[in-house]
């Protein structure tokens, strides 16, 4: 445990140093970034040992509060979530070093140092969240994480939309925290201690437990991005610096999943409807997430909606796992949870890869608007290649890692659909339909992204003069892309590693989960065999093609646009036109707004204009009415707000007197 704490200490110290050195851009950045990397590297040692099965002794500190003990522990579930956090945070620090450099001239003095201060605090917060086994410490770490990420989102705070997005995030995350506090209070009071280890002692009726389950889903789901609590993701991710978006979207939202799983396992034997709720949320988040992503034309906003989609897939896997526990099927439990947990890691890899790629595009071309880009593969060959790998992986296509985790969830769903009886079998049908639809739509979405941003001809000057990023930025991408391929090609090993985690988490006997994972070994070996065969076939065909063309004439000319002599870049299909048939097909869920100004009569004086916008339907139809409904009765409190210190002191004094009277009783 001590190397881990040392790592966190390094993070805190480097954060403070970066803040202290903030007048010197370069020094502050170096201290911050290297501190983050060093801290992560040191903390990785015990995490790897825990994953390998070693027992890491807990760190128990004296705590003067009557709420249990201050206890830090790395068990397998923590280790599994810590691994991607450490990796992505370290890579993000390396990337951020180069990514933030252009900001040094643009931003006021000191902002880079502050950025690194909050970045390292965010990393420390995430690490602490995953090892705290006491409700109070957990909340402190949770708050540290939320606040640090809030300040990071507000990095570009001179822009109004950035400030608005940051506030949306701030409010959303704290509303979520309120539910978590309610959950912890109820559980802790019932159990008589705020240590997680004692939470199982809480004996509450099934009704109360059901409410607590919903609290956990709302509270942690807000952080994770379950629909309809996802509204902050598409606001906050696009405006944060790209390495921060990568960390937030890749790993920070996973702490929500971590908290949810941790709590669910402490809440006793789950009724079937818990599993069903998770599956339902997963379906909604997955399908609507990818549909909203399709309708976006801001690259990072689109990626943010894809996080909602992938969280949906994780929720579906967890739902199958919960259902498996509830009906007593170790196979379903293991397949569902193993798929979900592996997807946690996989999503961390490819989503941060994609955000890094998006950052490189923004860095190189100066815009995130996809319809202004195009043809970047020629200008940014490395970024383009890595982005393509990430895009194939996130679409869940073989032979990369996204397919492996979705395959495990599919296998669970097929198992449930093909062999179980009664309603449980319907869960398989629901998950299969959902995953298939999500898979097809995600592939549509990423062909759109890759096609409009990296392929074709540049649509604007920005895109035509884009430049490739430096090694500090492409090296993290290379690492992540290689890991995506590695997990895809070592699928059986990856699944094997999940078995003890699931056993540790669910309390199933390790033999049972190992048996279930053995069940998945044969299929996964088959998948890998097929992947290798695919790669071999690709190489052979490429060689064949090369030989065929070797002795022939190979010419180059303009694109044959069905005989049209002079196609221009502006005639290309844009991202909006590419997605239009699908968004039109699902328009009742999306509410896309189109505004059209047709060009005038035969010789138009001014150009026509067509724009589409797809605002988040939950904000427009649910949250905005809800908040305006809440604001109305609360607005009378403005009457007591005058901004005079004297009055506020008076309020305090009156409250004190009232409390004293209430506590001591009315004097007789």
């Amino acid at each position: 445990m001590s190397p881990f704490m040392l790592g966190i200490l390094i993070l805190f110290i480097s954060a403070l140093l970066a803040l202290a050195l903030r007048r010197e851009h370069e020094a502050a950045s170096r201290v911050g970034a290297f501190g983050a990397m060093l801290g992560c590297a040191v903390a990785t040692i015990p995490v790897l040992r825990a994953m390998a099965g070693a027992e890491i002794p807990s760190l128990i500190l004296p705590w003067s509060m009557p709420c249990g003990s201050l206890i830090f522990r790395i068990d397998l579930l923590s280790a599994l979530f810590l691994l991607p956090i450490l990796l992505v945070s370290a890579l993000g620090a390396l990337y951020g070093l180069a990514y933030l450099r252009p900001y040094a001239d643009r931003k006021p003095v000191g902002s880079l140092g502050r950025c690194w201060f909050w970045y390292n605090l965010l990393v420390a917060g995430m690490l602490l969240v995953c090892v705290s086994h006491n409700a109070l410490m957990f909340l402190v770490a949770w708050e540290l994480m939320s606040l640090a990420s809030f300040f990071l989102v507000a990095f570009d705070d001179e822009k109004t939309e950035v400030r608005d997005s940051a506030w949306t995030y701030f409010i959303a995350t704290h509303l979520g925290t309120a539910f978590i506090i309610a959950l912890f209070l109820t559980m802790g009071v019932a159990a008589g201690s705020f240590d997680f280890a004692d939470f199982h002692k809480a004996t509450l009726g099934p009704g109360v437990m059901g409410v607590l389950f919903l609290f956990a889903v709302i509270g942690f789901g807000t952080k994770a991005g379950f629909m309809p609590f996802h509204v902050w993701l598409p606001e906050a991710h696009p405006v944060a610096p790209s390495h921060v978006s990568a960390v937030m979207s890749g790993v920070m939202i996973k702490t929500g999943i971590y908290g949810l799983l941790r709590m669910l396992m402490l809440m006793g034997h789950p009724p079937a409807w818990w599993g069903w709720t998770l599956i339902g949320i997963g379906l909604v988040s997955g399908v609507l997430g990818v549909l909203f992503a399709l309708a976006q034309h801001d690259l990072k906003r689109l990626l943010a909606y894809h996080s909602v989609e992938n969280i949906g897939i994780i929720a579906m896997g967890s739902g199958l796992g919960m259902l498996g526990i509830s009906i007593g099927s170790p196979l379903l439990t293991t397949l569902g949870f193993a798929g979900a947990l592996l997807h946690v890691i996989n999503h961390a890899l490819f989503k941060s890869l994609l955000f890094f790629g998006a950052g490189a595009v923004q860095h190189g071309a100066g815009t995130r608007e996809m319809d202004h880009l195009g043809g970047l593969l020629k200008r940014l060959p490395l970024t383009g290649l890595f982005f393509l790998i990430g895009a194939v992986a996130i679409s869940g296509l073989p032979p990369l890692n996204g397919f492996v985790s979705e395959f495990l969830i599919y296998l669970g769903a097929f198992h449930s659909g093909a062999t179980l009886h009664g309603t449980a079998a319907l869960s398989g049908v629901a998950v299969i339909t959902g995953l298939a639809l999500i898979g097809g739509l995600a592939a549509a979405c990423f062909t759109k992204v890759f096609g409009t941003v990296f392929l074709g001809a540049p649509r604007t000057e920005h895109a035509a003069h884009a430049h490739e990023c430096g090694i500090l930025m492409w090296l993290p991408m290379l690492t992540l892309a290689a890991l995506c391929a590695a997990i895809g090609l070592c699928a059986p090993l990856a699944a094997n590693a999940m078995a003890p985690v699931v056993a540790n988490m669910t309390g199933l006997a390790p033999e049972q989960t190992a048996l279930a994972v053995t069940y998945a070994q044969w299929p996964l070996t088959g998948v890998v065999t097929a992947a290798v065969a695919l790669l071999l076939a690709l190489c052979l065909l490429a060689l064949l093609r090369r030989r065929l063309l070797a002795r022939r004439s190979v010419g180059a000319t303009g694109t044959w646009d069905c005989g049209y002599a002079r196609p221009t870049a502006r005639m290309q299909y844009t991202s909006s036109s590419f997605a239009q048939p699908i968004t039109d097909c699902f328009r009742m869920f999306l509410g896309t707004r189109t505004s059209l100004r047709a060009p005038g009569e035969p010789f138009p004086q001014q150009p026509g204009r067509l724009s589409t916008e797809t605002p988040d339907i939950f904000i427009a139809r649910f949250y905005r009415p809800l908040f305006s409904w809440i604001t109305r009765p609360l607005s009378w409190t403005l009457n007591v707000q005058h901004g005079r210190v004297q009055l506020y002191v008076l309020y305090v004094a009156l409250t004190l007197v009232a409390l004293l009277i209430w506590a001591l009783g009315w004097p007789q």
Partner: protein
Amino acid sequence: MSSWIDGVMVVLILTNLALLGTSRITVCIRIIALQGVVLGTLPMLAGEEVTLRLALLTTATVLLKGVVFPWLLLRAMRKAEIQREVEPYVGYILSVMVGLLSLGGSVWLAQGLPLPGPMAGTLALPVALFMIFVGLFTICSRRKAISQILGYIVVENGMYAFGAVILDEVPTLVELGVLLDVFVAVFVMGVAIYHIRREFDHMDVDQLDTLKG
């Protein structure tokens, strides 16, 4: 034999889904006619032996549901010069999806209602529930009065299927009474549509609220 009944049930489900996904009213009426014919044969298939009573009931049902109702409705359409589009409030694909969901719901509900009877194990009960849901949904989600009649007929068909499940022998009198009821309803609505059309020059049900004082 059970396979035959399953086949009939599948045809019933498909006709309902087709009804939800069809945009032409004449096609809808024909679908309902097909549904009536198939439904009419159900007692024949379920019965142990073919009795005269069963044969008569079958013939009457098939004739009424498969020939008379559609004929009346088509006639009403022609007379009232109704346009061919269904004009739904809820789109066709979404309607089919709602249909599919309600099918899942019916299967789920039917598990909680184990009923005795010859067809208890078959799909008949979920299908009956499903038809009632589809009928109600059609009534709620379609603008035109004629679609609403179609909805009523589907609901009645559902009840007919329900009767076939729970009762060993459908009391002929009750069944014929129900048939007569619907017959009168269709007849009256057919006439009413004609007159609404003549008086108001349109026949959207949502315009009827202008009649209230």
